[in-house]
């Protein structure tokens, strides 16, 4: 089946509980996600939406699986740019696995179509977001300001 997939793995010196909280707490998200936060009850079937500092909602969907502090699956659809919206639903899976004194975080973002523009877009975004998250959890501060677009 034609498919586009982006996978990003990193190891963060933290606990699964702290990482889960960092991935789901709105105020904490804003610190490393360039001002963005995600609104959700984080339970299976609950709605999920990504809200920008100016109030715009660019992405929305539903929590398909939630198993704290191990696994989260989001049905994720872009709602802002027409060519990305037209691609329909993607799936974002976040997996947390204890590894020594750290946690292995794996993000898999996939859509059932070839050469997806949405997957290209998130491939640029995830490394910046997760680099910031790792620095914030390990050092107490992020490395990139909200204006960093590259």
């Amino acid at each position, binding site marked *: 089946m034609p498919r586009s997939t982006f996978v*990003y*793995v*990193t*190891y*963060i*010196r933290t606990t699964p509980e702290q990482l889960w909280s960092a991935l789901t707490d709105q105020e904490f998200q804003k610190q490393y996600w360039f001002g963005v936060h995600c609104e959700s009850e984080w339970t299976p079937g609950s709605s999920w939406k990504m809200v920008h500092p100016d109030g715009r909602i660019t992405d929305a969907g539903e929590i398909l699986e939630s198993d704290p502090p191990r696994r989260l699956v989001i049905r994720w659809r872009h709602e802002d740019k027409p060519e990305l919206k037209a691609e329909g639903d993607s799936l974002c899976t976040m997996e947390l*696995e204890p*590894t*020594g*004194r*750290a946690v*292995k975080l794996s993000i898999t973002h996939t859509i059932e179509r070839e050469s997806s523009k949405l997957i290209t877009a998130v491939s640029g975004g995830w*490394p*910046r977001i997760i*680099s*910031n998250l*790792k*620095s914030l959890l*390990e*050092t107490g501060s992020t*490395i*990139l*300001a909200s204006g*960093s677009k*590259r």
Partner: protein
Amino acid sequence: MSASSHFVYVTIIRTTPAKLWEALTDPKLIRQYWYGVNVECAWTKGAPWKLAFPDGRLADAGEILEIAPPRRILIRWQNEWNPEMKAEGPSCCTIDLEPLDDAVKLTITHDLDRPESRFIRAVSGAWPYTLANLKSLLETGAVATNSHPGH
């Protein structure tokens, strides 16, 4: 494109290009964040490049194809320890450093000219661990973890 295997990884590290370059080329620093391996290289164009396991066995070998401190290294990289991966022939590893705010964007691209390469699958598992430890070492003075699931 379909005939080759490709891995790319981007991480952003709070450091300077000069310090990151040192961390990527100094054997004493490399050993701290990279499974204890020993890298031998003069880091000049055409110089041989060798990576050995902590017990001294040769893991990988090759040659520096391009080098531009503190921005870019291109390595011809041949697996030497696993017969199946060795049979796949040389891969090419590109390391790019780019200043970004008060940090450096590090991009690792690893390619091998055959589909579904076992070697590229292996490095796809190893690079995220190595680079997560490198980022922690430069930002906090210590690696993130010494226990890798595969080791």
